[in-house]
């Protein structure tokens, strides 16, 4: 009898890793016109980004329904000690609210803790991975909730975008963020703070942007875990990972992850980012 771990597809956890740790991933939906797809299930990344770049219309996204979450909870609830359901920032998506409501209505006999990480993408992913490992090692609900809270408070997520257009059109530019735009070509750099998208910097070239990502990672001191996120540039992600692996404890490598179709809808192509969990001492 263990605690089951649920998250959503915006955590961008590589599917092998999710399977290996027994993490249940509930997909959000992405829609091109009238065609609807389940994030990470029935639309390949290649096809998604090709449509995103070349397609006539931008995709829209929607959260899983209360019913969909409830079904997952009922299914997992049988014979488990509890369910930890960990999600992206409630300030960016209604996913958390959907899950929260489902937890109240699902009538499952085991306890369900729905947790708002105030994070996105692999920053949620790293929190989920930490909690799943602890759950698999036998930790109980209380301990796992405390762990989720603790890792969330030490999580950071910052990204270099190729353009702010996708984030803007998707309405996810935070109120504290100056409206960047105009005739000068720049690479906006964003950081999640208090669950919202904030401005980290603006760079004029990708190389300066990558240098800024590396510099920013170093500013967070010692690091427990790290993930590199990219939307369309796997080589850049690989070289960033090997550059930063020395920040991690001996023998650990950053997880490399590709932004799924929901995160990709807002990041657009050419996004490159870092999610990390600071060490408790730093």
């Amino acid at each position: 009898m263990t605690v089951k771990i649920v998250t959503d597809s915006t955590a961008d956890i590589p599917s092998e890793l999710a399977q290996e740790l027994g993490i249940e991933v509930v997909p959000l939906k992405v829609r091109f016109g009238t065609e609807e797809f389940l994030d990470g299930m029935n639309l390949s990344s290649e096809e998604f980004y090709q449509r995103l770049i070349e397609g006539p219309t931008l995709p829209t996204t929607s959260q899983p329904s209360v019913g969909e979450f409830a079904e997952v909870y009922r299914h997992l609830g049988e014979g488990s000690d509890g369910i930890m359901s960990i999600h992206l920032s409630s300030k960016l998506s209604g996913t958390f609210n959907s899950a929260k409501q489902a937890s109240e209505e699902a009538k499952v006999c085991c306890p369900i803790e729905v947790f708002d990480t105030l994070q996105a993408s692999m920053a949620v992913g790293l929190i989920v991975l930490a909690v799943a490992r602890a759950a698999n090692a036998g930790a109980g609900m209380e301990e796992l909730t405390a762990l989720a809270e603790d890792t969330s408070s030490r999580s950071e997520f910052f990204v270099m975008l190729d353009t702010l257009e996708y984030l803007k059109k998707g309405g996810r530019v935070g109120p504290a963020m100056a409206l960047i735009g105009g005739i000068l070509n720049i690479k906006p750099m964003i950081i999640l703070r208090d669950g919202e998208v904030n401005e980290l910097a603006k760079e004029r070239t990708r190389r300066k942007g990558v240098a800024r990502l590396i510099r920013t990672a170093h500013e967070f001191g010692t690091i427990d875990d790290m993930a590199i996120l990219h939307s369309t540039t796997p080589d850049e992600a690989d070289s960033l990972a090997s550059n930063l692996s020395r920040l991690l404890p001996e023998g650990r490598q950053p997880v490399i992850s590709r932004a799924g179709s929901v995160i990709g809808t807002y990041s657009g192509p050419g996004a490159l980012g870092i999610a990390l969990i600071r060490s408790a001492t730093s």
Partner: protein
Amino acid sequence: MSQSSNLHQPSNALDGQDLISMFSAATAALRKHSEMVNRLNVYPVPDGDTGTNMLLTLERMLDTASQIKSQSASEIANAMWEGALRGSGGNSGVILAQLFKGMSTSFAGCDNVGPLQVAEALTEARDFAYSAVGNPVEGTMLTVMTEAASAARDSATNAGTVLEVFEASSIAASAAVENTPNLLARLREAGVVDAGGLGFWLVLEGIRLHLSGQNAALDAELPDYVDVSDSATGLAQEFLHSTEDEEYGNCTQFTLESTSEGASLSLDAIITSMNESASSVVVVGDSNLVKVHVHTETPKELLEYARTLGKVDQIRIQNMDEQRRDYAESWRRLAANADTAMQVPIAVVAVAWGEGLVRIFREHGATVLIAGDTMNPSVQEIADAVDAAPSDNVIFLPNNRDILPAAQQAVSISSKTLRVVPTSNIPEGISALLEFVQTRPLDENVEGMEETLSSVTCAEVCLSVRSVNLDGVDAAEGQVIGLLERKMVVSGDDATSVLLNLLGQAVAPDSELITLYWGGPMDNRQAELAAESVSNQFPDVDIELLPGGQPHYHFIISIE
């Protein structure tokens, strides 16, 4: 000397109103030759503005002092310093303003002052000037101030009168100006004397002329060693015999060539006809070719008329009202901002010029202080812009090496927390502005912005305004020149080939992006063709072509 003070004071004592008369004469002398001083810039770039900066400083100084109804030398000197400081723009203006700081210090508490105090004021001024500039260089206005002060002290301690003190200091200053090329290799190479030094001499000379009963506005003549031979400078000097009047309109210049049928031009007739519809008329030349300079409200009509006289060429129309309107407009905008705009934690105020460049700064959140062509903002204008910005914490980007000193002085008179990030050109300014993040603490922002300055290289393409051999490069007047970090590295007849050669020297193996801000005489099509050539020559570098709208410069280029 005013009669009232004569009764009770030594015969050569000066009161406050005497100081105003003296410095009115000094201003008139500088005004007469300010265009010549502008043209003595080491680099023959078309935005030389030393004379203008010094003149604006003096004009503001006089304005402020004239409003004080006082006979006291001390009170008037204080007002002069106040006005000069606020009115000073550019390096040269800030240094000149120290003259009045010296007077204000040395005349403190005195209703009347004599030769010894005058000499002391010049000495104090010299010391203030050295400390006002971060890195004093000999062979500049500073050296001229040193020599003038030294001669003034010698004269005063040998019982010289006020007139004798100014005679001695004017002679010493003139000799010092003549010697500046021997002290500074750049001047020697460029074949000019120091512009600021010459301006300072004109101030002393104007006072000397006034004290000896002459009319500085008419009688101030440049020393023989100032080369006025080349056509541009010669003509410019001629122009300035008629600048007493203050009307603005359009400064219109053109050449007029007689048509081939042997019809010769009559200078007198041209002058007479020009005077009917224009002011400040200057016509120089001969029966085959004349250069015309006028101020007129109706340049089109005037040119139409000129075409009936001969072949019109090299037309240059500069709207002086517009420059002032631009200024006025930016103040109104700033003032409106202060009332209605949402207050922000930190505001950035940037100096910019050219429609496209101004737009870029605005789009990235800066309040823009528009600088005109050869019109650097004064200390007061900078302080006003800062005070009008929508925050108590302001970061200022001068975007021009010559505006930096005035910006630093503005820190002391602004009521706000003002930090200056010393951007010395537009590319540095844009880099620094992009680094700014509203939510970051002020110190962190300033530090980060300063760090970006070294990450961008600035190059420029413009026309040479005189013939020159500098940094080992020859350029004839009217040729295109390329500057790399303000150093002349190439000249030629075609803007695109100069641009390519310049970039050949500026682009490093790790350069990623060349941004070309086009302006000056270029049009969109020419700029696109030039950018295409650049793109062919540097296939591995990204090229971005943007309309800068800056005057004079074909291209302002950032390489990063």
